[in-house]
């Protein structure tokens, strides 16, 4: 762009033209800068709006889903083909504590017990979709008993001590059982999600009240 013209009058004219050109150029550049800034702002807003739309679509229409069938409970033991006959007297269960099988004709009222309850009545609760928290009094603290009681849903659950278990705590449903030594273990919550009132049980939703109370019922 630099020019080496020596004619003063022409040079002055050129200088003047150059000044004009520079001014015009500066104005043009300023306009371009402003346009660019406006462009960036508009693009950012539009982009943010698009992202917000996508997010709100996902949040409002695709509500979080946790199909119990998809829940994997780490360490759970399961049994198929359990019999479910009504019997009198005691039953020799294949697992301790029992997680399904033949049982007494009368079920036990769901709730919290401080004494060991009869297997045969409690198993009838499992048939009705209840879950049963058991703790070995010799292996747990009072805090753990409280924590286990807090884990139990207000209906369709039994909490009771159970002596001589090979784990401090168990939670059992019909055909499924989990041994644990920490009530905060996420597998316990997963078990509740998957098995409480589960259709794995033969009669989920049948009564868990109106049966017999076990000994030491406190809630």
């Amino acid at each position, binding site marked *: 762009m630099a020019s080496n013209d020596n004619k003063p009058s022409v040079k002055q004219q050129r200088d003047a033209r150059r000044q004009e050109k520079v001014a015009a150029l500066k104005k043009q550049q300023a306009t371009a800068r402003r346009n660019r800034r406006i462009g*960036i702002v508009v693009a950012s807003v539009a982009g943010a709006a698009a992202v917000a*739309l996508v997010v709100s679509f996902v949040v409002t229409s695709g509500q979080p*889903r946790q199909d119990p069938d998809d829940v994997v409970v780490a360490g759970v033991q399961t049994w198929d083909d359990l019999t479910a006959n009504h019997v009198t007297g005691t039953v020799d269960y294949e697992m301790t504590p029992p997680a399904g099988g033949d049982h007494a004709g009368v079920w036990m009222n769901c709730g919290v017990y401080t004494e060991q309850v009869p297997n045969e009545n409690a198993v009838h609760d499992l048939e009705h979709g209840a879950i049963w928290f058991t703790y070995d009094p010799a292996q747990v603290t009072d805090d753990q008993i409280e924590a286990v009681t807090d884990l139990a849903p207000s209906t369709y659950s039994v909490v009771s001590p159970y002596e001589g278990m090979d784990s401090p705590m168990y939670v059992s449903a019909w055909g499924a059982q989990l041994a644990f030594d920490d009530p905060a273990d996420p597998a316990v919550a997963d078990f509740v999600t998957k098995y409480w009132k589960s259709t794995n049980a033969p009669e989920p939703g049948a009564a868990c009240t109106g049966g017999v109370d076990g000994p030491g019922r406190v809630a």
Partner: protein
Amino acid sequence: MTDAPDDATGEGGATRASSSRRVRLVVAAVITLALVLVAGVAVGRLTSPSPVVPGDHSVEAGFSRDMQVHHEQAVEMSMIVRDRSDADDVRTIAYDIATAQAQQAGQMFAWLEVWGVPQAPSEPSMTWMTRPTLDGSYGDHSHGGATTGADGSATPAPSHVPGEPMPGLATAEQMTELRAADGVDAERLYLTLMIAHHRGGIEMAEAVVARSDDRQVDDFARGMIATQQSDIDAMQQMLAARG
């Protein structure tokens, strides 16, 4: 947007202009992609034949879980009074309530199964009742302790706290009292508790009607409101007849 005049700005300007063009191209491509995605999701969702079912934290799932618990207690109370009373009128309405609510509890159980969500609650009971209503207002239903300002205007705060007992539920002590009562005492107690129980049930049904546009849940809740209101009228007459 106009291009920078690169004829006058020289090479530096030309580079800047072309790089800003590239940035703009990328931004435009990203926005276009996002818009296409949104349009695709919207079109897909609007034309998709598979219905969108209530999710784990939906008011429908919350209602279906809580109302099962609520109904189960009504069944229990009704079965108790049938064992404790010989009065035909009370035994008949107790039979009606027990069988109807056991059936309805099964219906709600089945919804949760069909929706593919757990029966077990994912949040404290009644949380769904603190969610905004369809018209955007909060708890337009007042209950028990709902407060009214000095000028007579209702307070806008939601009238329920997640995890607190559901409206109308009998306490463990009241249930024990009912199990121990006999004859007209049992009938009076049952009627009193069940009227309160039904009122609470109606309140919860109204809460889901205000919050859900699910046709099945809406029809169910409206039916519940109608039948339980007629039950309440009948039970009030029975209670009055017993002095």
